[in-house]
């Protein structure tokens, strides 16, 4: 399985290690080579310096037709753009974008990309630990709509989406 990870911060590097150990073909991109120091010395995948929002850079890195594409930089909007680029132009199978603004995370799930929101995840984890009510929002929101040239498809067509787009992480309540 080919996995592309954009952004080699703590999250990106950790995921890269996990997928590498699991035997995936892993490609990690970051704009800074020092970020790659987070990768373990045993890492067998490729680490490419470059801007993940640039289509040519992604193609040169071999990011086309990835089975899994994870946009994990520190910029919400960069992740949004990279994820849409991967899904619309590079033929990625499953795409996940880290979006720490809950509003944008919800909006882009409606626009067809799975989103993970650190804000919701952490707030809910703290609330759960304290025995307080949680937001009820899943930590990863599965796409409920599809993007086609700007047309917004309502949540109703989520049922017709191909397999693998149902709620990825059902939260423990």
């Amino acid at each position, binding site marked *: 399985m080919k996995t592309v990870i954009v952004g080699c911060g703590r999250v990106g590097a950790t995921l890269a290690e996990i997928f590498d150990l699991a035997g995936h073909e892993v490609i990690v991109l970051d704009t800074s080579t020092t970020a790659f120091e987070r990768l373990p010395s045993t890492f067998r995948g490729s680490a490419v310096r470059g801007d993940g929002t640039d289509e040519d850079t992604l193609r040169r890195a071999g990011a086309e037709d990835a089975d899994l594409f994870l946009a994990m930089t520190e910029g919400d*909007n960069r992740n949004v753009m990279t994820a849409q680029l991967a899904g619309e132009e590079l033929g990625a199978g499953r795409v996940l974008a880290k979006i720490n603004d809950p509003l944008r995370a919800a909006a882009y799930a409606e626009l067809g990309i799975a989103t993970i929101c650190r804000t919701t995840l952490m707030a809910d984890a703290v609330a759960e630990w304290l025995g307080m009510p949680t937001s009820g929002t899943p930590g990863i929101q599965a796409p409920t709509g599809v993007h086609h040239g700007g047309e917004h498809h309502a949540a109703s067509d989520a049922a017709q989406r191909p397999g693998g787009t149902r709620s990825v992480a059902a939260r423990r309540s």
Partner: protein
Amino acid sequence: MFVLVVGGGKVGYYLTKALIESGHEVVLMEKDRARATQIADEVGSIVIPHDGCEGKYLAEAGANRADIVAAVTGDDEDNLVICQIAKHHFAVRRSIARVNNPKNESLFKHLGVDEIISPTRMVLGSIEQDIPVHELLHLAALGEGELELIEAHLQAGSPAVGRAPKDLDIPEGCSLFAVIRDGVATPLRPDTVMREGDKVIAIGKTECEALLHGQLIGEAETADAR
């Protein structure tokens, strides 16, 4: 018309001023507080000192009743997100994005941005159109500079198009010796007919340049529109 401008850099600032002058209702969003205050001092209380990528602040700015949203920040990814959130969350009729990387144009269109403004593309287009029309390109000076290697890009209107070197009035001391056509360089024989788009490589005395220009590019008044 109610226009929501996001990004208070040079483009956003002058755009806001121009829109006010022509009588439109404008709100400008600029996330840098100091910059926002600076602009507000001049144009009044229509500046919102917040990030236009955030739904909450877009709502505060009145995005739901905006006729047009113009995303003109210096970051392409921000401009994309502003336009998408405006369209899908606030049902704004028309979104305009400034695109700095020309390669992003088609992606943005595909993702639903209504109008793309690409300053890079405009300058690029202007450079590509202008330079070859006006000038012979100097490739190298030979010896002490008495001979020059010159490239001429043949455009429509060049006296050389449709003719061969033997039919041209090539000045004494000059010779046309190669042509680059569709990226392939071949020797130019006296009977090779030249076409529009050809790049002709010539060698000649420096003082013959004006004559060579006339034969390969055309007279100065037809080429120089400025």
